[in-house]
């Protein structure tokens, strides 16, 4: 067991930090610490420009293999990159779904043609992606998707009809990956397909969802015979669930280390607020701040354990990986509550009317999403009990 990085990795750290210091300047200065979860609606155009600058510097898709335009960085270097990125306060990435989800999925399951067609646009930061998974009737029960894909022989295209929901950045995206039912008589995880769909077409309507924060970064996406080229299905019809589950594995990658650095930035703001208004002298607040600090530090150690370890013998996630989502989501939600309790009655007062939230207020409200999306805390506990502890599976209902 050792914790230190090699001298080569430390030089890499300097290189990343220097590049960010030199480039996150001028017009990009205003983007610092902006555009993360809960703040995705801010500066979308400027962040698109930033994405291309980042790409020009060779700092997109750093973990991808060289042959697909990546940097083939080791796990350690990816950790370093994401840490330095967040430490510098560089903005939330508009390209994160393409880089973190679409790309790895296409690399793992896609055809050569799909790789040629889609990977360069992701690496260049010019083509943005969104994710079409959840539906009004398929939230926790993700396999219950109703959206259908029918192959139209005359047009030689798949026609997709149905509704997706909670699609972040849909209005900014060029493409969407969609799970849809290729076999209309199928149920649950059988008979699904995984499609790569162009967003700018007549068959697609995007409607923003006004959230608890009064802002919108999630959307509803309506598909009415939206077209998808015959060769833009990943895997065969019926393979959709396998591809979709493979993709969920990519979500727990090294970017979690960067997420923690962003959490650290938020935590520092809470500490600052406590020192400014005197809450730092309240013994109960002191305990809560120290607890948040403790749990954030361990979150990092846990992620390091995750990244250093191999998968379990059954190919499944190790225990420290299984608990990770439940842990960070619960922590983040508590941080929001702590922020409000540090502010005291002042937590109620907005920056401006009609509903201009401060960063901490926005944090407090937005973190309520964390324990719901990507598998609610309740679903996470089922997964932990069933896969981590081998307890009996929940029975299917009969309704």
């Amino acid at each position, binding site marked *: *067991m*050792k*914790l*230190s*990085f090699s001298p080569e*990795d430390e030089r890499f750290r300097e290189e990343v930090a220097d590049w960010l210091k030199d480039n996150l300047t001028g017009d990009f200065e205003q983007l610092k610490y902006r555009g993360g979860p809960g703040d995705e609606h801010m500066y979308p155009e400027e962040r698109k420009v930033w994405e291309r600058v980042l790409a020009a510097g060779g700092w997109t898709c750093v973990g991808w293999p060289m042959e697909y335009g990546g940097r083939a960085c080791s796990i*350690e270097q990816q*950790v370093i990159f994401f840490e330095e990125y967040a430490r510098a306060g560089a903005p939330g990435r508009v390209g994160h779904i393409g880089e973190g989800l679409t790309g790895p999925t296409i690399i793992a399951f896609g055809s050569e043609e799909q790789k040629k067609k889609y990977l360069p646009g992701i690496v260049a930061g010019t083509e943005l992606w969104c994710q079409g998974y959840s539906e009004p009737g398929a939230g926790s029960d993700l396999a219950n998707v109703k959206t259908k894909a029918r192959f139209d022989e005359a047009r030689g295209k798949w026609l997709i009809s149905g509704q997706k929901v909670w699609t972040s950045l849909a209005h900014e995206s060029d493409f969407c990956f969609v799970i849809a039912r290729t076999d209309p008589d199928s149920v649950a995880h059988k008979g699904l397909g995984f499609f790569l769909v162009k967003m700018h077409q007549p068959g697609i309507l995007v409607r923003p969802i006004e959230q608890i924060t009064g802002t919108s970064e999630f959307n509803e996406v309506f598909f009415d015979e939206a077209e998808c080229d015959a060769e833009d299905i990943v895997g065969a019809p019926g393979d959709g669930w396998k591809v979709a589950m493979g993709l969920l594995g990519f979500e727990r990658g090294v970017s979690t280390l960067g997420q923690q650095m962003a959490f650290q930035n938020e935590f520092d703001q809470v*500490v600052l607020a*406590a*020192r400014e208004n005197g809450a*730092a002298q309240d*013994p109960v607040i*002191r*305990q809560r*701040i*120290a*607890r948040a*600090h*403790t*749990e954030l*530090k*361990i979150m990092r*150690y*846990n992620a*390091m*354990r995750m*990244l*250093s*370890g191999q998968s379990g013998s059954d190919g499944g996630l190790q*225990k*420290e990986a*299984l*608990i990770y989502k*439940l*842990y960070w989501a619960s922590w983040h939600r508590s941080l929001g509550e702590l922020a409000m309790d540090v502010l005291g009655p002042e937590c109620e007062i907005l920056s401006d009317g009609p509903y201009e939230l401060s960063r901490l207020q926005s944090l407090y409200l937005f973190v309520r999403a964390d324990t719901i999306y990507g598998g609610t805390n*309740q679903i*996470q*506990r*089922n997964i*932990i*009990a*069933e896969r*981590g*502890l*081998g*307890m*009996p599976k*929940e029975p299917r209902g009969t309704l």
Partner: protein
Amino acid sequence: MEFAFTEEQEMIRDTAASFLAEVSTSEAIRAVMATERGYDSELWNRICTEMYWQAIHVPEQFGGMGLGYVEVVATMEQMGRYLLCSPYFATVCLAANTLLLGGSDAQKTAWLRPMCDSALSAAVAFNGGVSDWSAKAVTATWQREGGDYVLNGEYRYVVDGHSAQLLIVAARELGSVGEAGISLFLLPAETAGVFRRWLPTMDQARKQAAVTLNDVRLAPSELLGEAGKGWQVLAKVLDLAAIALAAEQVGGCQQVLDRTVEYTSERVQFNRTIASFQAVKHKAADMMLQTEVARSAIYYAACVAQDALEGGMMAKELAEAASIAKSYCSDAYFAVAGDALQLFGGVGFTWEYDVHLYFKRAKSSEHLLGNGAFHRERLAKTLLD
């Protein structure tokens, strides 16, 4: 960065686990916990001569194996899992660490060698009976008389203090306050003026003692380190010990979690195993989360401790890593053990089932060397003041 056990470390852990599964059975624990000494001397001898755990991180020049603190932590985790009754924690994690950090070469040779070679047991007495585990805990006093040091005072919560052969005690210069004036002394337990008394405890599997020093006269050669600078040594020792204790807590978490999953998978009510109820599964999931998070905390702390013992750069992180590990693991173990007792239902409330042994250990370890709140306040000082 390789934040996982090496193959050799895994082997040490697995060997410890299989040895303990055989020797530290429920019957064995119950037999020795009813005695005043609290451990089986024969088993302690076997550990010292066959397993060599007491020598793991002691440098080879003093008779040890020259391995690191990560190996100590890995072994402590297994001892917590099997609730081993032994003077290991007091002897190695407290006394040997004090000698390693504060002793002269002559003292190390004089005392570490017999620890490694002949199962010498030792204890460290420092807390005068206060719940604040900082330097304020040291209430016993010393003063010079002629060339000698004369010590007076009382200690409580001295782990294995009544049975140890060697005592290391902390005392402060008469009239001193805070971290100043504290000195450490080495003395054989039979030294004139030392009175030791077993304190019966709720957790019978780890024994505590009260030690009274009544005009104990010591030669300067028995001073450990520099006079008045003892706290600098003791503070580090307590951090190292807290990390080891946290590892023991993690082992306890794992054991009660495993036993709970096993029991709920057998116990049938309403024509189904109670493990199939979501209310039970979710509690078990929370137990696993706390256990894994606690484990991540101790592995990191173990690396820091090892680096600190080697005089590395991470030494400055030691206090923080110890407080993080001890506060999280203390709360986690008590919560997990409490949940286990609840999920075992009626039988968890009986003397016959082992759950209560772990439930009691969780509370005793929580308060030993500072509970969660104490360590969080220590962290809060560095964050907020």
